[in-house]
């Protein structure tokens, strides 16, 4: 079937089996490799994207449900020249180690901050439930708080 949606601000129409996970459409059809495969069962969060602003694990989200939606991936969150406050905070805290899980965490964090600009530790514990094997959680928590500060102080992202 044909599925049409907006991704990182661009309208795209793709031909796919509607039941295929959106992750593979993003990675293999649209060649956006920042969204990662980790488990295929929505258990690790490496594939987290935004669908209409909500954090979604794209490995378990059928492509057909993307019809008409507004999708953001890590590539659309920000870039080298103009990083999103979450990415900026990640850079300032030097969070990544291997880096593989990090886009999923940043997407989950950005979605959380858009609804809850000043999360408590408890909010972070509840909302950020992806898996990082290198153990960067300690720096991630600091970066999430820094991102909250940057977001609150930024006229664009408030």
């Amino acid at each position: 079937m044909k599925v049409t949606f907006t991704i990182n601000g661009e309208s795209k129409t793709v031909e796919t089996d509607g039941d295929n996970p959106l992750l593979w459409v993003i990675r293999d059809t649209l060649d956006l490799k920042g969204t990662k495969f980790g488990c295929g069962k929505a258990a690790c969060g490496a594939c987290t994207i935004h669908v209409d602003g909500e954090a979604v694990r794209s490995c378990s989200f059928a492509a057909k449900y993307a019809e008409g939606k507004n999708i953001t991936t890590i590539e659309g969150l920000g870039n080298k020249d103009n990083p999103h406050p979450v990415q900026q905070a990640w850079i300032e805290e030097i969070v990544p180690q291997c880096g593989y899980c990090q886009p999923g965490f940043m997407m989950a964090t950005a979605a959380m901050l858009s609804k809850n600009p000043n999360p408590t530790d408890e909010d972070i514990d509840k909302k950020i439930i992806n898996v990082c094997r290198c153990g960067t959680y300690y720096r991630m928590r600091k970066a999430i708080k820094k991102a909250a500060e940057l977001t609150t102080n930024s006229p664009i992202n408030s």
Partner: protein
Amino acid sequence: MAEKKKLSRRKFIVRTLLGGTGVLLGATYLGRNTLRRGFYDLMDDPSMLTYMGDTENPVIWFQISNDNVVTLHSPKVEMGQGTFTGMAQMAADELEIDVDNIQVVHAATSTGNIDQMSTGGSTSIAGFWQPLRELSATMREMIKIEGAKKLELDVSQVKATNGTVSGGGKTLTYGEVVDGVTEWEIPDVPALKDPNDYKYVGKPVPRVDLVDKVVGAPIFGMDGEFPNMLFGAVARPSKIGAKFISADTSKAQGMPGVVKIVEEVDFVGVVAKSMIEAENAKNAISVKWNTDKSWETEDIENLIQVGNGNDMIIQKEGSSGWESDAKEVDQFYSAEYSSPIGAHAQIEPNGAVAIVENDTATLMISTQVVKITRSEVAKRLGLDEEQVNIVPTFLGGGFGRRLHTPHAVQVAVMSKAVNAPVKCFFNRKEEFQNDTFRPPTHHVMKAQVNDEGVITALQHDFASGDVAIDSALVPGFAHTIVGTDIGAIRGGQIQYRNIENVRAISWHVELPFATSWWRSLGLLANTFAIESFMDELAIKKDKDPIQMRLDYIQNDEAGKRLRKVIEVAREKGGYANTANGNRAMGFAASTDAGTPCAHVVEVLVENNEIKVEKVTCVIDPGFAVNPDQVKAQCEGSIIMGMSASLYEKMYVEKSELRPTIYGPYKMALMRHAPKEINVEIINGTGTPGAVGEPPLGPIAAAIANAVFRITGKRLRQMPLSLA
């Protein structure tokens, strides 16, 4: 571009690979065999077990572009440990160029910059410290020589600063200097800079891969692509010991997207137009596996017992037969500890992207064993090694999981069969069931204490499956010579060598499934046993657990460094020996690969749940090339070690290793991680040593020791649980 041809080769770097000054634990090994002793020495000095490659030719290491960017081809891979950044710092300082002008990439094997060893064992920075600085300093002199020619000056009249060569009022960038140079003159290795003059080495320089990793750049193995690529899937067994016999592929033939079923003597796979089509067709194949025996968790636990398998005394000081020397008044204590099967659970699955055409093969792959991956592919395809190009990518986690890459061969075979590029990766269930696991362990600790409360004898017996056997870091014959598994025994020796009689005995057991390196090898479980037992003895004898340890540390260089980290941890962590309600502190220390490390943990027990609130970690890596990344490695080791200590456990049911997914395989998440981790670095020698694994050592014991103070319960099994 700097060109490789017409290089006047001269041996200009003298480096003794298997000599050098090892920081030895100083134990009196039971090694009548000198070769055997040699291997023990190797384990204690990471710089001896690390890099074997070309340290004579700066031109295969560095490429300099016209826009003055130096590309450093690293024969070690980057898996999060920060090696690329440390290398960039060392190179920048000796090359006299801004670190931002250095780009570190993985050296494809076609560059000729090939490491005969693997990336692992916390050895990369230690091993590169001398050769990479020498290579960089030599390259700088080579640039100066060519720069002087272009400026029509004598080399003594030019200087290299900030990526430029200048003299006589004129300046050329390195890029301008190297433009058109085809023949290089290689001078003697110049004197290295005084470490005090370094601008980058020893400083918290941000990771060189930081921004790429924050914007989601396609840098990992699974991001690899070739034009017109097809997708593969390989049927993998779910049961222990299953050997491929045959496959009924009739249902898979003709399924949507299927290009070819590839059946070989040892595996069956599908190549299709998309990953999902390949996966679907693979699932339609009915495979006949040979499984000779059914296994349960209990069978494995029964195998891993001290007393089973081959024993080997790895440490012996003092008199033999110490028990029989015991006086009437002496007291004996003993306790048993154990650790379960652990999964690597790295988030990027294993796999590769291969293109085999004509007489060449190229593979993009996350591997810790570039050289071995190449050899295995070449052998299977009947090619010369030089006809195979391995292009290593960033690893989505290593931890020892990428030391075995049989999947590279499978993907190459499938590519050859369809005459097109093929990409093929494990799914998560296959990852969990075909892992090269951390072996389970069993430990028996025994102590003899005299009537004055002095420990007069201490013995650690421990059983483990394979760790380092067949590993790239250890020559194949090492196991035979040493008589035991030199990975399993990491951390197994007793570091309190002022105890009169000390013994450590390794029991090596064959397991029916693959086990291998898991970050820190035997260190975590061995330290858990030794440091928990030390705490038990302190409590039994009513001694301060930290002071008691200090009393038994010998007064040599290794002992002094260990003493220092313990003393600093006691002070910085504000160690208190008694619980405060349902909170308490726990202490433990270990030395791994020459690096001593001590943790003071603060633990809360609530509703029988163990929560680590704060960790103070003191480490002496010799010298921190990048203090921020040393801290990052400590934080990561603490959290990964905590995860293994408190949550992780694989079990065996009807011959299947389970669980097969995150969640049921419980790991530390954000909510479990300590909110405070303070790392204190001591630069005890001025020369970098191991960092990536040593801080894992003390964590399990430190937590268990704290839990005892809160609950009075001594937890002797990992994962630690009060439920």
